[in-house]
């Protein structure tokens, strides 16, 4: 397929210009063209949350989103979360709490948790469950993910 559409997006703080195809998804553009493979493809129908990025500051699934429609947008992927080797407190909490097994849902879950804690610094357990209700994790049974988000809240308080 012809890559003849010019787009420009600010990705992880840097403006990126590229030619893409008309029907290419944003996920495909990130993973295949930019090699930003931290954003995962689990279902291809927007039902598992593995492909969540921040699009203009809000988490959204991008496996069904046409990349052309993100022209001019600001995108943060999991690769843009840590500051160099300094991990985000949510990332630290996920590690410490054992909230990671295979790790495939982790980037999406982490970004969702970051967004939640930015907008609701002290979420209840139900609010945490609600926030990650669009995500599927097949390994952890969500128990330690919920613990990690609570732990991240404590870490952020201490900062």
């Amino acid at each position, binding site marked *: *397929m012809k890559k003849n559409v010019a787009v420009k997006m600010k990705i992880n703080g840097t403006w990126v210009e590229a030619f893409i*195809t008309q*029907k290419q998804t944003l996920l495909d553009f990130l*993973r295949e063209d930019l*090699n*930003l*493979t*931290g*954003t*995962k*493809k*689990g*279902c*291809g*129908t927007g*039902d*598992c949350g*593995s492909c969540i990025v921040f699009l203009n500051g809000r988490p959204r699934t991008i496996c069904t989103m046409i990349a052309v429609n993100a022209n001019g947008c600001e995108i943060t*992927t*999991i*690769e843009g*979360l*840590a500051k160099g080797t300094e*991990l985000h407190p949510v*990332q630290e909490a*996920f*590690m*410490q709490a*054992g909230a*990671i*097994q*295979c*790790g*495939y*849902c*982790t*980037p999406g879950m*982490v970004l969702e948790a970051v967004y939640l804690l930015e907008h609701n610094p002290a979420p209840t357990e139900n609010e*945490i*469950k*609600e926030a*990650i*209700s669009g*995500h*599927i*994790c*097949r*390994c*952890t*049974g*969500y*128990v*330690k*993910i*919920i613990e990690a988000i609570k732990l991240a809240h404590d870490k952020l308080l201490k900062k």
Partner: protein
Amino acid sequence: MVEIGDRIPLIDAVEKVTGTLKFGSDFKLPGMLYGKVLRSPLPHARILSIDVSRARKLFGIRAVVTGWDYDLPLYSVAGEKNVDERLLAKEKVRYIGDEVAAVAGVDEDTVKEALKRIVVEYEEIPAVFDPEEAMREGAPLVHENVKQNIARIMRIRHGDVTKAFLESDAVVEGTFKTPLVHQAYLEPHSAVAQWDLQARLTLWIPTQSPTLARMTYANALGITQDKIRIIQLPMGGAFGGKLEYKLHPICALLARETNLPVKMTNTREEEFTATLPRVPMVTKMKAGCKKDGTLLVKQTEIIADNGAYMNYGPGILLSATTRHDNLYRLKNIYSDSYLVYTNKVPTGCFRGFGCPQSFFALESIVDMLANEIGMDPAEFRLKNASKTGDITVHNWHLGSCGLSEAISKSTEKSKWYNKRRELKLKRSVDIAYGIGLACCLHVSGNRTFLPFFDGSSAYVRIDEAGQVIVLTGETDLGQGSRTTFALIVAHELGIPTEWVSVPLVDTDFSPHGLGTFGDRVTTLGGNAVRRAALDAKRQLLDVASRDLGVDSSKLIIENGIIFSKKDKNISMEFKEAARIASHRRAGAMILGYGHFVPQNVSMVDPETKTGNISCAYPFVAQVAEVKVNLKSGDVKVLSLTAAHDLGKTINTLMAEGQVHGAIAQGIGFALSEEMVVKKGRITNPNFKRYRMPKAKDIPRIRTIFVESNDPNGPYGAKGLAEPALTAVAPAIANAIYHAAGIWLTSLPMTPEKVKDEISKMKS
């Protein structure tokens, strides 16, 4: 110091949490092509012609291959003698999804376009979807050479069943059905293949068993094993679904044809349509006991749906037929089991290997018996429970058995005895509460299908910089086996875990190992790794001994320092000793070696199916508390108290995670998951309509570890991950009976089925 039982985060957690870990589906090679499979749209048809000319002509297409282009051999999975499939169909297609052709091209869109241009002329023939119908005389044959579509029959006879039924005070029976369910690992199957000039194939694949894969793919491609190198890539979940899989060698065909690297990745729809979900079973079970609760006899018939091709069905059916007999001290057994071909997706391994199916029947039947004689179900189980030192009816030697303790602890923590009485009082017109118990067991490595091989081996390498590398043939599916191995090595060498790395398997460098399934890795692999670490330690201390002038038996290592037991001032850094060891031997590294072959373990007898198939057996008791809406039929699990005899906890953090994850999958199996098949077509091949538990569906989970210290496990450790799923569905079913007085005998226990049973009971 790292201790056994510590809480250690995954050694690859940083890569995972930053998105930098390259999973199989993330892996790329320069100049690679993309491949896709053309699948059969019909459940059963003869292939009359295949025209690929228009596909070949498409701009950007580099290869189109079909089963008519090559003389592809018949093959099956490792150890299976009944070879019944080719990489690409030749005469017939046998299910919707069957592989007919494969295409490689410059990008996925072009390849998809080429698939549309392939014209296959089919002659549709009658298909059979229900295993019971498939077994009838005159049913359409999925494979012409297999009479009545029966791929395998097992008949097990122990004791005197007729007499035991006559002596029984209570007899109950039921028919239990478990559906087609998918492992639904989050990362779809993926492969990258490339051939070199010596006609040697390299496959970069996420697989549970690189060596089984190599064995099977060599057969499928008609080449020898030495011509294949498998490089294991990290995988986004597996749960039994990432053993041998056709996509990998098909990718190799395309790479050979184009002489370029080729990558293939399944869509989620292909995952549901054409991978290897759990074997559905219909289990008819009848059992009898004495008034005092002594379990006397059990008669079982299992009909298992193999789907269109042979995978690990025989092993899974054997497991379903025999394993549950070892949970209680049961002596009179009569079992007939049938593995039956149908024109549906082939079925395979999924966490539990036949046990989630059969224990659903057994543990429901046990509650029915207890109910029949008016005995508490926990007491009933305690009365009959197998114990340490038992030799069971199938000749299993239980070196450790924490079943009774697991029952006691799970009932105690869940306030079982109070709740059995009091929950009934909480009942309102529409809402009923109940509490149910179920038990199960498993193996720690299973001597099933390879007569020539068992056990595990490992190398622990210490280089001149003091870096410790563990080479193993076992694989990490995300459960954290690499972290477990690092913990064991760090513990034995007295160094921080961070100094230890555990590379993924590469068949050119790693020891030959069977990989990860059957709860074998911690027990067998852990023993091997521990022995290799001790061997490396001995070698390192010999070096230090010479420099320190202290006999090596008088030296110990703690926190990376080697010192004399008598005088702590006589010391040397671990890394310094490693440097000296290497320099003194012209760069040769310390290479510790260890292997573990379980003793007193054997394949089953071909006739009786008896045999001590594992060196250690884990046991489980789980208590589920439920709320049943009698009007809507909705079942909510309120809590699960899970007691697991895992022998010994090695990494507590990840062990808890195994229990949580298995329970979530168990709840899905119990209440919501089902691949709906209509005339051979999966009608819900996506995550929107295949309903897996989300965060809100998970109840409070209490995890209890019972440490029975198995004599054969490393530090006493046994398996954990698989049986943690098995007990969930029957525990919930028994809780529903306690709440509402109805037996749900067909999974998933959907609101419709619950409502049906309630209205049946009322009328």
